[in-house]
């Protein structure tokens, strides 16, 4: 509905008013950047875990929008998949671990706020100083966006460089890719996964009954007290007989 009215309105606007050409790239950049910043501030200021997670998701999604705007589609999709999807899990775990009341509220003390504000603002100052000191970031770099596909990236991870002049055309040698770092990271992640599964698995506790069973098994092996096994039964048979007698009453 909104888009339809927008469609009808725009030509009228163009015919009636002399509107300066809009550089959509800048407009969208400002839009996404301000969204990311606003929601990042929201994460800090909110005192409810789930609202924080929501703002975090919006902030990260706006960052993904910035990536898409820059033509880095793979990174953008990755951002959506890993960070936004990861926040989802964070949210679930956060709610499960912290929820004691229906709506969890986190209110830091004034001292905490002051400390966090100090640390955060000093970091921000350092970052800003660093960012402003880079010359090539001072002017808008709106060159031609020739988005490389994800294929050279994937091939480079498999050990073949097909991009750029380093592809080994002159020397005939195949340029090195990133197979080794990729494999190291993969193995590392696998180890982490196995470790997580080990830590999170349901631990088998030794219940008293199983300890008894183990003890009786030991005694059976020893062969000294074979009587012990049937000896464990009298209470049960007693209760059964009590039931029977109760029934007969």
């Amino acid at each position, binding site marked *: 509905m909104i*888009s*339809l009215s*927008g*469609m009808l309105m*725009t*030509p009228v606007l*163009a015919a009636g008013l002399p509107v300066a*050409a*809009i*550089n*959509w*790239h800048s407009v*969208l950049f400002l839009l996404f950047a301000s969204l990311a910043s606003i929601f990042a501030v929201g994460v800090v200021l909110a005192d*409810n875990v*789930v*609202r924080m997670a*929501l703002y975090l*998701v919006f902030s990260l999604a706006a960052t993904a929008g910035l990536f898409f*705007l820059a*033509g880095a*589609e*793979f990174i*953008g*999709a*990755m951002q*959506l*998949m890993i960070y*936004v*999807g990861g926040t*989802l*899990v964070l*949210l*679930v775990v956060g*709610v*499960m671990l912290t929820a004691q009341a*229906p*709506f969890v509220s986190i209110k830091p003390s004034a001292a905490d706020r002051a400390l966090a504000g100090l640390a955060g603002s000093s970091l921000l100052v350092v970052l800003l100083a660093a960012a402003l000191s880079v010359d090539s970031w001072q002017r808008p770099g*709106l060159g*031609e*966006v*020739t*988005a*490389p*596909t*994800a*294929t*050279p990236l994937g*091939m480079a991870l498999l050990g073949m460089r*097909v991009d750029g002049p380093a*592809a*080994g*055309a002159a020397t005939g040698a195949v340029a090195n890719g990133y197979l080794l770092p990729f494999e190291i990271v993969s193995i590392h992640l696998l180890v982490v996964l196995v470790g997580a599964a080990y830590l999170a698995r349901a631990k088998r506790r030794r219940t008293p009954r199983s300890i008894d069973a183990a003890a009786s098994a030991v005694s059976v092996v020893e062969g000294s007290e074979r009587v012990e096994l049937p000896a464990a039964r009298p209470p049960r048979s007693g209760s059964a007989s009590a039931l029977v007698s109760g029934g007969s009453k």
Partner: protein
Amino acid sequence: MAAFLINSVELPEWLAWTITALVAAALILNVIAGGALAFIWAERKIAARIQDRLGPTRTGGRFGWLQSLADGIKLLAKEDLMPDGADGMLFRIAPYVSFCASFCAFIALPFAFDFVGQRLNVGVFFVIAVLGLEVFGVILAGYASASKWSLFGAMREAAQVVSYEVPLGMCVVVPVMLAGSMDLVTIAEKQAGWLTNWYLFHDPFTFVIFWVYVTCAVASVNRAPFDLAEAESELVAGFHTEYSGLRWSFFFMAEYASMFLVSALAAILFMGGWNGPVPLAALAGFSEGTGDTAHYLVRVVGLANLLTKATLGVLFMMWIRWTLPRLRIDQVMTTCLKYCTPIAAAMFAGAMLWQLAFPGGLIPGLARPAGEIREGWLEGPGGQSAPVVVPSVDGTVAKAVR
């Protein structure tokens, strides 16, 4: 279309891009909303027939054509209630989060060769990533409702969707591997030609993995027999227990949109996309240079092909919904982790080995389209590797591209 507006109508570039974006958005919105209307009617009729009933018969003529419209009016007129204890902001925003996630995934979904909102060279990845975000709205809804049923439903949904993303991702990787690209347009174009070129019939492994994909897709869009999040026999209505009216209907539009989306994705990945079972265009002598009108006609036929396949997929989902009983949550997890994931992994390895063993296909007569060229990257350095240049929203860039 932007190029057409700039060159023929001579609009300024920023305006041309705005109009193009708005038209694309409006079209996608209409696909979602119109699709939901049609599918809700179809679901009512199919459920009724499977249960030996008639379903809607009166509203709007003999077959109850207008039943969905009547439902919509009822939902519009219904009061949007919110529980007293609910977290108001989260409660209100949750349906829109779900709906936006579904909507965003449609942006990268091609409906025919040129008919795509924004062609991304990582289209599959994008669609899968965005589709996973739909669950976020569900979790928010479950949490914000301040109801135990809702929270249970949301937690189940979170566990289920996060688990099923693993085998779903593995299934999707197989067509990506065969096509050598994550671009949905490229993947579908690789399957042009006769029926036998579809990746479904590429080798036995892809045939099996297609069914794994179907299972995971049904689970990831939260349809029966995997609709644990709203299991009405246990959780009243699960995550949307407290919702009514328009907000509730947004959840359902999102659900039907996702169903359509995963079906269309299945059609593109495994069943040739917009390529029909018989290459009519090629038989009729159309080629790329035949002319604009014929060209356009081929696209429209392709669109009809894709919509038919996707609709069949949605109808298939309805069929199994009304046929199979709901699984328990532990059975759902077992299906995912003990069956779908290992099968998908084995089939992935199998498809890879098959491709190595029979690169030209098993039967020589049914050879695939020549080349198996993968964006030119195996043709050596200096070969004709043409990077896909993606026009951004910036007008100047687009002009440079064209």
